[in-house]
């Protein structure tokens, strides 16, 4: 299981609405709604925190889930968001031009 870094795309606008993240893609105006766990991953996807730390500290720390299942689910979630173009991943830390606050746009749209 290779570790990786995840970062929010700069080509989306994201707003937190009653604890759920709503993400609007600039490229095709698609809209995605993340549940609580997805929102926690999104908030932590700062390009500097390894995915293993997101799973261990944030997901396993806050939710009652075993590490193996959490890894599986989070990787599937990250793969999906990468395919939609709203997250990106890298083996190295990713520098983000703007670090949005949790309720603000991450620019782009």
């Amino acid at each position, binding site marked *: 299981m290779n570790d990786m870094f995840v970062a929010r795309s700069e080509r989306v606008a994201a707003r937190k*609405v009653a604890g*759920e993240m709503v993400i*609007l893609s600039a490229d095709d105006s698609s*809209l995605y709604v993340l549940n609580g766990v997805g929102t926690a991953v999104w908030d932590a996807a700062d390009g500097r925190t390894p995915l293993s730390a997101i799973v261990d500290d944030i997901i396993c720390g806050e939710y009652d889930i075993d590490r193996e299942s959490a890894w599986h689910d989070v990787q599937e979630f990250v793969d999906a968001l990468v395919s939609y173009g709203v997250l990106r991943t890298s083996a190295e830390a990713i520098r983000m031009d703007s670090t949005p606050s949790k309720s603000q*746009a991450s620019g782009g*749209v």
Partner: protein
Amino acid sequence: MPVGLNTTDTSLIKLLEKRFGRFLSPDRIPAFTFDINVVSDGTFDPDADLQVRGANGRWTLRRGDFLAEWDARQRHGWIRQTLNPYAIDSVLRIVHSLVLATEGGFLLHASSAVRDGQAFLFTGPSGSGKTTIARLAPADVTLLTDEISYVRRTAEGYRAFGTPFAGELGESGENRSAPIAALLRLDWGRDNVYDRLTPAAAVQALMRNILFFADDRSLTRHLLDTACDFAARVPAFRLAFAPDARVWNTIA
């Protein structure tokens, strides 16, 4: 928002009077004025899709039946169109959607109606029942529109206004307004069932059904902000409804 329309073409004036009858108010001072020239069929490519382009408050709108320019800051524009009532209808939808986007409002694919002083918005894609629910409304209900709802933020909250933009009923709504009590996302059902939508799901329903024509990122972001604000203030439900008059027993 009154819009002034100047034309010397008597055939067009008759068409517009018929289409916008209840919404004509010649005594009000217009927020924007358009000069309209009627041109012959064949001036434009009739198959051309709608294009809306703009920068610095100057917009160019074109389609197979019209070419228009609008300068938001000069509060003035012009329209060259063939003789039909739909060109001006489209220009007005676009202009209103652009103005509303900057002011915290929107045009929504939704029928809307007022009962006991409260407005209800019924949204959803084509075929979800917007026109059906409008058609089933009992006599004490005032229809604002069966097609395009006009929503504006006011100091007291969100308010729905009637529009002349007609859908299948072919009739414009009443020219009045009321505070919005609820947003209902329609589905067909065997019985009338309400499920509360989360605010995020309400944002999703709004963003899918808001009319917006311009490829303008800052306005799109502004619309997302408006949808989030609306969802935080106005309760939203999924309404699966059986297509008969009983559904109105549940709306008040």
